[in-house]
């Protein structure tokens, strides 16, 4: 098979996706066509067996559980509690309560696997509260859009489960590998707020109330539930007590208990969270099913291997390859959702990555950061959609407010490349 067919197939796939066919079905259709046209194997039976295997795999069960946990927490008072607990501590920092966006998202990201859910849950409370206190909308919305993407990088993470299952990498290790890069990115975002506040001292409203240290400490009691939940989920993974799947199930139970303790658990909220999670999972499962078969089909055609050989022949080196990929992903991320991006990447370029001697855990985190950029680049960026739904602002305007976050993520990728230890140090010290 030559490169013309390889690129022809990839182009055909993008044309089908662009024409509006549901992504999972388009992947499945291209996989079937490729198999029937370019291999001697019967496509249909291989399709059913592959899809069955992928959809019933035990490792994947972590995914619907984390989705459900997020859906439950979205319906609790967790975010307003976090606001109450965090706000008193942040009034002294340049930028004051704007930091609640970043720290709130960082903490919530540690119980939520999704960027849009993090953005929606934290924004639900910070957008009205900050507006009421007179913070400029542009910076409030921009920092929220950027910090919300931490939901992907800080474990648990839906996209990391997808990557881990597709690339056959330990999900627990991936999770733990995301911790320091997540903190790094949060620090960069906070730096952005500080710099902005120092440059625009008049734009930041004065602190609303003076509180003593004791009062601050007392307000922090509101953070106890979320901290307990983080300890339960991440602690059990890091210490090796539970696998990612088991931690996810414990997280669902923990969230239900928390919701019940807050009095937020009615039959209605339970049913809504359950159906919301089922639909979300179903949507992702269709993409995963299509991509599992496409991966198989492309493997039979030898497409990823050919592409790897071709790219190797270009002599790009690691830096050139990663830089090229980042540009490609940023463009792709303007049009595709993150999950589709990750599964397509694994289906097509995993051999290229392995051949270039790039660590798959490191690459997973790199990919997640690039997918985070995709969340805030128009026209398709899920955090932008969420914020548009909450504020009614125009998409291009929201994207412009979040532009500094985009450049900070590019800078973070540079730092992760220069200091790979930020990613690899912690997972190497894991128990088990």
């Amino acid at each position: 098979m030559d490169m013309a067919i390889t690129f022809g197939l990839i182009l055909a796939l993008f044309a089908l996706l662009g024409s509006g066919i549901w992504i999972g079905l388009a992947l499945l259709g291209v996989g079937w066509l490729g198999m029937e046209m370019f291999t001697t194997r019967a496509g249909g039976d291989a399709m059913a067996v592959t899809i069955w295997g992928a959809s019933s795999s035990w490792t994947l069960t972590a995914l619907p559980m984390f989705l459900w946990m997020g859906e439950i927490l979205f319906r609790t008072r967790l975010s307003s509690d976090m606001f109450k607990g965090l706000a008193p501590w942040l009034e002294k920092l340049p930028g004051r309560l704007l930091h609640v966006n970043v720290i709130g998202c960082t903490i919530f990201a540690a119980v939520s696997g999704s960027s849009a859910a993090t953005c929606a849950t934290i924004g639900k409370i910070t957008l009205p509260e900050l507006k009421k206190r007179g913070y400029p909308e542009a910076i409030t919305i921009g920092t929220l859009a950027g910090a919300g993407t931490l939901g992907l990088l800080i474990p648990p993470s839906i996209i990391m489960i997808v990557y881990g299952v597709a690339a056959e990498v330990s999900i627990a290790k991936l999770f733990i590998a995301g911790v320091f890069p997540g903190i790094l990115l949060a620090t960069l975002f906070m730096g952005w707020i500080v710099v902005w506040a120092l440059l625009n001292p008049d734009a930041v409203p004065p602190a609303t109330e003076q509180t003593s240290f004791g009062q601050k400490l007392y307000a922090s009691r509101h953070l106890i539930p979320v901290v307990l939940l983080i300890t339960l989920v991440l602690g059990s993974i890091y210490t090796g007590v539970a696998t990612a799947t088991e931690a996810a199930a414990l997280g669902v139970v923990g969230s239900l208990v928390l919701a019940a303790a807050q009095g937020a658990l009615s039959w209605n909220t339970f049913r809504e969270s359950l159906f919301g999670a089922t639909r979300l999972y179903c949507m992702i499962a269709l993409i995963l099913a299509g991509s599992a078969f496409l991966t198989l089909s492309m493997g039979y055609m030898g497409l990823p291997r050919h592409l790897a050989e071709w790219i190797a022949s270009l002599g790009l080196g690691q830096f050139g390859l990663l830089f090229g990929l980042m540009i490609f992903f940023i463009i792709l991320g303007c049009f595709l959702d993150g999950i589709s991006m990750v599964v397509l990447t694994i289906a097509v370029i995993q051999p290229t990555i392995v051949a270039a001697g790039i660590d798959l855990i490191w690459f997973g985190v790199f990919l997640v950061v690039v997918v985070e950029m995709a969340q805030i680049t128009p026209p398709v960026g899920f955090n932008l959609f969420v914020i548009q739904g909450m504020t009614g602002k125009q998409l291009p305007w929201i994207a412009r407010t979040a532009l500094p976050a985009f450049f900070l993520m590019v800078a973070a990728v540079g730092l992760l490349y220069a200091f790979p230890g930020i990613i690899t140090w912690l997972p190497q010290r894991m128990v088990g």
Partner: protein
Amino acid sequence: MSIRRALDRLYGAAAWVAALFMIGTLAMILLSVTGRLLDFHVRGTDAYAGYCMAAAAFLALAHTLKRGEHIRVTLILDHTGPRTRHALELWSHAAGLLCAVLLAWFATRLAWQSFQFNDISQGTDATPLWIPQLGMAVGSMIFAIALADELLAVLRGQRPRHRAVDGEPVRSE
């Protein structure tokens, strides 16, 4: 009962079963955790969790489609005139239906073959595989029906109903 109501009930009922299987997935994982902590062992919980998850995904397909929550790239669709848009909607529904029929056909065939050759799971659960595969077969059949239903609506010139419910943020990623 009209066909319309019967179909909507079908999608709704499948969604309820899917939701129950979500709870089933949770129950199976919790069973294996408590089993390890309290030192008793239930055979095959891992496999059962996977089966429940698969059934949940496939049985919810039609309902999720109706709610407009399956992801598609609408960028071009949203920026074309009404006639091109209609043509593109027809094409994407027809092509989508074709893929869904393909999936339904071979999923059913897989379950049928597992039944005929009495395929048993390789794991400790030793389940006859046609039983869990039935969920995939039935779910993808209902999905194909739902897509045909939508294609008909587009043909009749109705606005496809599978658009995201307004005001509900997409919390997908």
